């Protein structure tokens, strides 16, 4: 069946694994993902509730932990409606595509290094599989998963879902470009696209620090890619009811819901693996007792902590920011994010080229880069601000645009006619004319 052999370019060693090992790992990953989604829904509702100073779910189970289980049961038992205008086959196929593709990504995520199964001598990597293009495989799964959303919106035969799916197409294509470009930085530095190799390459330094711009771009793009607030335009409740899933109910709706949360977990796991050192212990802990916390089962804990850190970021961003307008969002993606990512890749390729072909050592490059960055920031900081041409401010018009307005900055409020009357009673005639003018005006 599946031949187990060491693949060149992959540092994890799967040579011990048999068909049964793969099967057990695959089942464990599915169980992990499904329970994580239940916890994630509870986590999101609870954290958003804390941010909005309300208790959140607190009725079912301790701390409301069973709330998402109850919700899932409710969805299962609801009536399954297929709308009349739907294209039956595609309507059923779409949620399946969404869930299936979201489940695939975790096959290449390393939860930890090699672990020994308790009470046996069997050693196996805490990862289902890995191959030289594992990160591209993640991108492939994500891009096929979008078909679920697009086809779901189209097959409903209804306006809002169609608008949602058209939006989602444009959005995902644009943000996947930025995301791919952000990942290229890691490929250049790590010299590999295999997840286990990338984690290995972060032994000294997590890529989030030297590749900070790429990391920021990835985090923005990952929120766009998973259709979460503030980028949830394909399902914007205020504009499109709920976009592509408006016409879905019961279990089919639950599948879309499941896919969305699994996708959040996926992109968080990829961010952890590529930028935050994967399963590696954070710095002070990694030095304890000769790297004790980087061996055995400990790394799974660090991996989960970092992954849930990203999940918290998702919730935090959702609780903080408002939804962008669609054209602003697309403009941001194409005119800011992608050019910035491209420029960053070119810069990175140049430095890496200098390192390899001119044989300049890393410290020199880092020092030179740091000095250039400091100088650039200093120049930008002290650069004299371009003063707007000092034009004479237009005279104050209290009824500019036919509406009573206060003076703009730089404009003077004309002296009040009443103040003049109180101070200088003898100029009563003057004030009289002014007030009549005022009366004429409004």
């Amino acid at each position, binding site marked *: *069946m599946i031949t187990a052999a060491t693949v*060149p*370019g992959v540092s994890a060693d799967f040579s011990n694994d048999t068909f049964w090992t793969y099967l057990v790992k695959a089942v464990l990953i599915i169980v992990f993902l499904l329970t994580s989604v239940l916890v994630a829904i509870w986590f999101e509702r609870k954290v958003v509730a804390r941010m909005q100073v309300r208790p959140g779910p607190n009725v079912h189970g301790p701390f409301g932990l069973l709330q998402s289980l109850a919700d899932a049961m409710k969805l299962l038992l609801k009536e399954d409606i297929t709308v009349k205008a739907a294209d039956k086959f*595609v309507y059923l196929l779409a949620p399946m595509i969404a869930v299936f593709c979201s489940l695939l990504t975790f096959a290449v995520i390393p939860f930890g290094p090699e672990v020994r199964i308790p009470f046996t001598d069997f050693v196996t990597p805490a990862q289902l599989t890995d191959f030289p293009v594992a990160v*591209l495989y993640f991108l492939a799964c994500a*891009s096929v998963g979008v078909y679920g959303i697009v086809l779901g919106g189209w097959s409903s*035969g209804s306006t809002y879902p169609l608008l949602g799916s058209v939006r989602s197409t444009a959005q995902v294509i644009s943000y996947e470009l930025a995301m791919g470009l952000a990942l290229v930085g890691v490929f250049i530095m790590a010299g590999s696209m295999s997840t286990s190799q990338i984690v290995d390459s972060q032994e000294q330094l997590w890529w989030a620090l030297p590749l900070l711009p790429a990391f920021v771009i990835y985090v923005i793009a990952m929120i766009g890619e998973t259709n979460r607030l503030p980028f949830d335009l394909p399902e914007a409740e205020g504009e499109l009811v709920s976009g592509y899933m408006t016409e879905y109910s019961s279990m089919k709706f639950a599948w879309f819901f499941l896919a969305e949360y699994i996708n959040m977990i996926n992109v968080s796991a990829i961010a952890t693996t590529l930028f935050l050192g994967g399963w590696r212990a954070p710095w002070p802990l990694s030095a304890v007792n000769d790297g004790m916390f980087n061996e055995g089962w400990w790394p799974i804990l660090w991996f989960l902590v970092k992954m849930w850190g990203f999940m918290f970021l998702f919730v935090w961003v959702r609780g903080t920011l408002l939804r962008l307008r669609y054209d602003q969002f697309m403009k941001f993606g194409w005119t800011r994010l992608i050019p910035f990512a491209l420029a960053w890749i070119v810069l990175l390729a140049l430095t890496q080229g200098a390192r390899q072909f001119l044989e300049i050592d890393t410290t020199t490059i880092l020092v030179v880069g740091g000095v250039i960055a400091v100088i650039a920031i200093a120049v930008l900081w002290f650069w004299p601000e371009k003063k707007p041409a000092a034009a004479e401010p237009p005279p104050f018009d209290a009824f500019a645009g*036919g509406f009573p307005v206060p003076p703009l900055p730089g404009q003077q409020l004309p002296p009040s006619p009443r103040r003049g009357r109180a101070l200088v009673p003898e100029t009563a005639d003057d004030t009289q004319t002014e007030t009549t003018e005022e009366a004429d005006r409004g």
Partner: protein
Amino acid sequence: MTASTGEAVLFWVLAPLMVVAALGLLFTRKAVHAAISVVFVMISLAILYIAQEAPFLGVVQIVVYTGAVMMLFLFVLMLVGVDASDSLVETIKGQRWIGVLLGLGLGSVLVGVVAQTAFPPSVGLTEANAVTNPVALARILFSDYVFAMEVVGILLVTAAVAALVLTHKRRLSPRIGQREVADAKVSALATGGRLTPLPAPGVYAQNNAMDTPALDPQGRPIELSVSRVLRIRGQERSAGTILAAERDVLLEHEPERALPALRADTSVDASADTTAGAAADDADGADTSDRQER
């Protein structure tokens, strides 16, 4: 060289399905179904590539063709229309025959080239992928075929720029953004414009259709809450008829609650506006009498 059992099984499962999907592309009526067939063929092809130890090619096939190119096709198809099916009328005369001729020409050129090529002896997958599949591919593409790569790259950039130039429109009027719209609304205020969006249509116990007007705080129907088109066509319903219908239902089921409303109806002339107003007044009256009882 023979394939392993697993690979043979994979091929014989996928190949017939791919043929069926490819035929589906030719024979389905809806354009989106054809697109789905193509997607299926592409993904199956990628799986076969990966099974033949070309993982980079397989994955890139999905990312680029399935994820981007087909998605753009689908985007256009969806924008064309939900129920658009192709018309079979030829728009260019003799298009079909030209197509057949060109297809045959391309086929013969390809067959000729492939038949005449002398392939170098194969080195085997283990050796070809020794430095990992993507690295080996990169070395071939960016050393032996770097000129072809550059030419293809220039061609693609040219095509992209051409698409931009062809679809670019010069703006003839100033751009009207959020700010300009807001300013225009404020300046129109003096001449009877309004700042807020139009009021939504009315929601009643038994009716919340678009053709029913909402009531303002005084109980008068708001003209603007019904779409202008419906008003011009005369398809607007008056608030009075709806309120009367609701009162009938109330009378049938809860006569004691409907009685005050009935009294109001008999005492006031039953034009649409006054009925609504009277109903509201009566509700107030009922409220005060309640309080007095307490």
